[in-house]
């Protein structure tokens, strides 16, 4: 526990430090009464500034709009900056055009038989095809591909279609989840371009971020399994702080899907992790070093390390 700051009102701090002399054990039962009253006034698990929910389609539209705005600010030299792997910004946008086309196919191909399962190999040809083109041509091609996706999503917002299976590059999940994964991807590549062009990083809007954190938490058991990390019956309590955050408790070795913290699943929690929601998303996007992540971890720290390592495997890249 760090020493408190007394800069503003040292007398008040001294007053209440001395008031420790008057501390009294509260009467039996008052703790439960107070905590019950608090939780009745505000449900556990939900952030205090919870945004109005948006649909995955709206989250995707917002991510496209944000990336579009960024591209509109780049000059020709910036389009040539190295951005990710061996891709410069222009070829990275080409890669996204390829993802967009595959996504449109995958929306109607839940078994994923029509497109390659490798995210990078599937889009390499269109990324390479950008060499020698003008940035405007690359931009127009990407914009046409995203417009085609958005047109195909018309009317999907409120329909059961979001719960239907879809696939993309080996991922098989509901169309709604896949759209959030795409939102995640667009934001991640937007940050890649921002890093490449020395622009400040920018968190997604809070409602989109909330969709992203919920998806990442839901995929925790998948992440552990993908990373080949045995977890048995262990569970984790994850507190994501800041806008878009929340509190979840999840069994890591069982079925896919976290429980909101207010449902209080039975059994002890193996590890408790507190971390900023945006930093958590950067970890999931494989853009943050698990070793450098500023997190408060209590309980099984080795499980936390496994969990962080597992989360980075969710990134498509």
């Amino acid at each position, binding site marked *: 526990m760090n020493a408190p700051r007394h800069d*503003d*009102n040292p007398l*008040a701090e001294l*007053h209440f430090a*001395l008031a420790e*002399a008057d501390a009294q054990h509260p*009467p039996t039962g008052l703790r439960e009464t107070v905590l019950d009253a608090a939780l009745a006034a505000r449900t556990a698990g939900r952030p205090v500034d919870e945004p109005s929910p948006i649909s995955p389609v709206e989250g995707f539209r917002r991510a496209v709009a944000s990336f579009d705005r960024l591209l509109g600010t780049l000059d020709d030299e910036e389009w040539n900056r190295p951005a990710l792997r061996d891709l410069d910004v222009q070829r990275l946008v080409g890669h996204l055009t390829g993802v967009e086309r595959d996504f449109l196919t995958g929306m109607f191909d839940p078994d994923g038989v029509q497109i390659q399962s490798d995210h990078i190999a599937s889009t390499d040809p269109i990324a390479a095809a950008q060499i020698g083109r003008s940035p405007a041509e690359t931009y127009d091609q990407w914009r046409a591909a995203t417009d085609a996706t958005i047109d195909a999503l018309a009317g999907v917002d409120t329909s059961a279609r979001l719960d239907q299976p879809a696939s993309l590059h080996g991922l098989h999940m509901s169309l709604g989840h896949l759209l959030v994964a795409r939102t995640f991807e667009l934001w991640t590549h937007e940050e890649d371009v921002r890093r490449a062009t020395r622009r400040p990083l920018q968190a997604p809007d809070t409602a989109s971020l909330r969709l992203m954190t919920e998806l990442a938490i839901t995929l925790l058991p998948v992440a552990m399994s993908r990373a080949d990390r045995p977890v048995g019956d262990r569970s984790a309590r994850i507190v994501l702080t800041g806008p878009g955050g929340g509190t979840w408790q999840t069994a890591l070795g069982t079925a896919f899907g976290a429980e909101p913290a207010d449902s209080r699943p039975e059994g002890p929690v193996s590890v408790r992790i507190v971390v900023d929601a945006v930093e958590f998303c950067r970890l999931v996007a494989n853009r943050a070093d698990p070793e450098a992540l500023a*997190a408060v971890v209590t309980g099984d720290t080795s499980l936390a390390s496994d969990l962080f390592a597992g989360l980075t495997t969710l990134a498509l890249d």
Partner: protein
Amino acid sequence: MRAVDSGDSVLMARMAAGDDEALAEVWQRHGPLVYGLARRLTGNASTAEDVTQEVFVTLWQQPERFDANRGSLRAYLGVHAQRRAVDALRRDGRRAEREERHHRMGSAVGSASGDAAEATALSDVVRDAIARLPGEQRQAVELAYFNGLTHREVATTLGIPEGTAKSRLRLAQAKLQSWLDRNLLELV
């Protein structure tokens, strides 16, 4: 992963994220102070329980109102306990005189000076006053004031019973009251 401070600001960020375990931790740490203050100021166990409940429910509903840059969570809760106690006294017309006295005190303690130079000067005055305390009392006050420890933690750190820790703080309080502005430091 990198270890980070798990102090007041993290506790409150957890609360804002809906972590009810953080609320339970704040209760464990500061519940006795809030209840003790309310009990002492209102002179009534039932009213003190109501005040304590109001303070913690409000904290859970509006955690974002706490600003760790302006002071400790203990002082924040203490100010709110004091204000709620004054409100409770105000509702009881028979206690008009007591109310007036606590209202003056609550206003003085609860408001930040807003003047950095004045706050720095006050800080120096407080430090000097604490330095003049006898050894055992000074130790207890330093742990509670500079390190932000509760009475339980002071007792554990010094290896003394909780009652002894409270006595040392109370004796120190009496001396500091005579050296500093009495209105700001008195509790009754």
